[in-house]
């Protein structure tokens, strides 16, 4: 009951540093990241977009079971990863594959879940990236718990907890923000408001002035940012991350962006939104904006662009190769990890299955 209420409210308009035409607008509170950082971010954007395109294609080819694309949200994806230090943790969702890969997880490991080989493919401890969460908002609590452990143990660490606009309606969202605020934990909640939860528009998720207005109800600052402006997202996240690192507690950041494709390949978005609405967002593409700015300041020339594209191609090729490789998952894995030590009954079930497999392969009835 201490913070003056006003300071916790977000601005009326999302923070924006680079406008759609690529022009910089300085902001008193959020310093524009330097050009080197924005160049690196742009490279990541190019790769991120390429990954989204590649995965989309792989689904069509039957190489991925499903792909929830972040096409159009790459500025958020990339900034989320770039705002963190190595020792920090990220808690992503199913849609955040580009964040996960930007953070360093190899595409082949990152896509194990969506390929259907296993429920997850990377070691969370190795990358400090939690498994990509499917049940909405549940991972926010894990993120808060991880931050709490860090605080209790005196670790220098910030935790980035990611979710979508739809997920803010879940009870776990509320409990997570509240725990983080009450225990004053180093967590940055990063909501990518892409205006849809599958077919359900934002107006069905909230009647609030903005999602960032929820922050004050927990006693933490809330901020809104233009989610298609990589400079702004990076600046706002960095500010929140550094406040968290300095003991300033949690922040809620809402990025305004747009889901350009259907929810996943299995979805048909023509059933619930006009093509014109989608089309209007094409010109707000985060890559166009970042490119225009970097071109304008002379930091991006044709050669560099070609290099970025080539790098992205290499990532896509590696991704393709990995997804095209025939992996034959081992059925014994079904029994290996349920418990640290395999109990009798699972061993019995595995032996039964082994027997069936043997008979099948031997062609014996």
């Amino acid at each position, binding site marked *: 009951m201490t913070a003056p209420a006003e300071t916790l409210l977000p601005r009326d308009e999302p923070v924006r540093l680079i406008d759609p035409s690529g022009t910089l607008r300085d902001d008193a509170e959020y310093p524009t990241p330097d050009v080197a950082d924005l160049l690196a971010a742009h490279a990541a954007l190019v790769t991120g977009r390429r990954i989204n395109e590649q995965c989309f294609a792989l689904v069509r080819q039957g190489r991925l*079971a*499903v792909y929830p694309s972040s096409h159009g949200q790459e500025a958020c994806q990339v900034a989320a990863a770039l705002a963190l230090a190595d020792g920090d943790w990220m808690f992503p969702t199913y849609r955040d594959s580009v964040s996960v890969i930007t953070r360093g997880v190899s595409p082949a490991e990152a896509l194990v*879940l*969506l*390929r*259907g*080989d*296993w*429920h997850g493919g990377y070691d969370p401890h190795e990358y400090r990236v939690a498994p990509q969460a*499917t*049940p*909405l908002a549940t991972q926010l609590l894990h993120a808060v718990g991880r931050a709490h452990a860090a605080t209790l143990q005196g670790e220098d660490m910030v935790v980035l907890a990611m979710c979508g606009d*739809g*997920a803010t*309606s*879940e*009870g*776990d969202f509320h409990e997570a923000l509240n725990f983080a605020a009450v225990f004053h934990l180093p967590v940055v909640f990063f909501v990518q408001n892409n205006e849809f*939860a*599958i*077919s*359900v528009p934002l107006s*069905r*998720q*909230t009647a609030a002035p903005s999602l960032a207005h929820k922050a004050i109800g927990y006693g933490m600052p809330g901020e809104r940012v233009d989610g298609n402006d990589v400079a702004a997202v990076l600046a706002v996240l960095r500010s929140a991350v550094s406040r968290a690192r300095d003991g300033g507690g949690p922040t809620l950041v809402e990025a305004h962006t747009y889901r350009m494709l259907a929810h996943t390949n*299995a*979805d048909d978005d023509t*059933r*619930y939104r006009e093509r014109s609405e989608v089309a209007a967002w094409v010109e707000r593409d985060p890559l166009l904006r970042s490119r225009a700015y970097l071109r304008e300041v002379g930091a991006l020339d044709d050669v560099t662009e070609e290099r970025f594209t080539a790098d992205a191609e290499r990532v896509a090729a590696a991704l393709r190769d990995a997804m095209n490789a025939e*992996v034959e*998952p081992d*059925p014994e*894995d*079904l*029994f290996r990890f*349920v418990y640290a030590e395999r109990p009798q*009954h*699972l061993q019995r*079930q595995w032996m039964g*299955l082994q027997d*069936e*497999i043997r008979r*099948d392969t031997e062609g014996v009835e």
Partner: protein
Amino acid sequence: MTIAELHAEAPSGTTETLTMAAALNRALSDAMLADPSVLVFGEDVGTLGGVFRVTDGLAATFGEKRCFDTPLAESGIIGTAVGMTMGGLRPVVEMQFDAFAYPAFEQIVSHVAKLANRTRGAVRVPMVIRIPFGGGIGGVEHHCDSSEAYYAHTAGLTVVCPSTPQDAYSLLRAAIEHPDPVVFLEPKKLYWSAGEVDTTHVARIGEAAIARSGTDVTLVTYGTSVGIALDAAEVAASEGRSVQVLDVRTLTPCDDETIFAAVRGTGRAVVIAEAAGFASVASELAARIGEYCFEFLAAPVRRVTGFDIPYAPPKLERFTLPDVDRVLDAIDSLNWGDE
């Protein structure tokens, strides 16, 4: 118009071929036509028509007040549905996938199931919770749980699971008219299976069905596994064994009479279900049969169930799902002596 009235009026025997998803859609739409207090809500059930299209067209036909999307919160969906029943409505809500009903568990177990009992019947909770459940569709984690045991164990709930388009239609109509809350489990894998549907056919909740007659052994099952049982029965028949298939249909309260009579008739039973076996509906069926048919049993009651593991990823699910061979193995193990 209740289905009983419909039945009385309509020329019976007019059937149509529908997929299970279409049959469910028809049941919803017929129920909404028949009773203005029926309404449908949940995640993506409005404009989109549900991720499995089971609510397709309802919003357009009946309007925003009868079929609508809610904020994304399962406890909220179930909890507000409870309040709606107190206002005389009959909500039919959809949980998008099995595992996404768990956030509503508190509301389901402590309120949906218990409110009538709490109030000595003064407040009844005539709602239907539709849950697409089970695997076999190559879905990633959390999209393939067989969660029926959680509900079947909970006194006050009625748990129903159809295995044919006809039952899907008739049982959903019956569930919507039911005075008590019904957890209506829709086997995802069967959504696209087609069959004849007579919309004048009335089903009663609480009644098992003999899906195939037979004299040597009874396969007791429900949902997706009914088809497997029937296939196994076919194979067994070619080997000279007469296999009876019993589709439980209502998991709880369960139709002891029909089940016990069937197993007493054959003297052997195999219970088949896709869910993990431990402390499951299959356990209950096996335990009940073991207790009440003991003197008739020539062999132990066998269970063919999912393994006691979290549901498998797509690439491995074929190893976990009960299949014909596994059922035949179980049948073979039933002390057939020297025949």
